[in-house]
């Protein structure tokens, strides 16, 4: 039996719900000898500095030397 408009819609909604729950929200890239690049749907909470943000893309320091923590400032390249 063909689905009626309404039940087809219900199925659509169910599929959308499923996608909503399982879909990858962010891409995280560990750059070799560099920062952590994060892009997508992210909520950035800095417990140390008490800040919160929803940036689209961030580069986070992984070397511990940045003067602009938690962000990368290129210090990892300096010797």
């Amino acid at each position: 039996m063909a689905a009626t408009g309404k039940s087809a819609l219900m199925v659509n909604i169910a599929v959308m719900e499923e996608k909503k729950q399982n879909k990858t929200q962010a891409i995280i890239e560990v750059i070799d000898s560099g920062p952590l690049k994060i892009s997508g749907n992210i909520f950035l909470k800095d417990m140390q500095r008490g800040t919160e943000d929803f940036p689209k893309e961030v580069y986070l320091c992984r070397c511990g030397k940045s003067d602009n923590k938690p962000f990368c400032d290129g210090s990892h390249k300096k010797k």
Partner: protein
Amino acid sequence: MERNDSKFTGGKRYKNNDITVYWKPSACVHASYCYRELIEVFDPSRRPWIDMNGSDTDKIIEIVNLCPTDALTWKWNDEARNDAVGNDQVNHIKFRRPDLMETKEIIEEAEPVSVKIMVDGPIVLKGNFSIAYSDISKDVQDGIISICRCGESDHQPFCDGRHRKIGFNG
């Protein structure tokens, strides 16, 4: 959250405080229920031809529902009400224009990946994400990963607790 109105092309939108009426002229077959029943709102000789202040919301909904095509459709502005609309509301977008029911906020509405900068500690990632490091790439669903921030972990790129031993401050 708002519906993905960007899918509505080739027509116009009219709003009052409660509802939005979509007008799609190409679908109109001039059955003329709208202006015969409620000229105060639907007046083809006026510009703009729909005046949402011409009557109350219930009456406008009633008349929009009389339209035999999807030339006139409507939705609640309070999005939470749209999913619950019953099928007696024949010209609600849920039944006439299900494409307009899709939300562009599916992604935004989904839980964002939590990126927590721990005090003098690692970056803690939580949620649904994909991660690439060295030559590895993997999808993580509803997972938690700690990434080293002090630069001294022996288990790079992950945290191994080393920041505590070296007295990392950052």
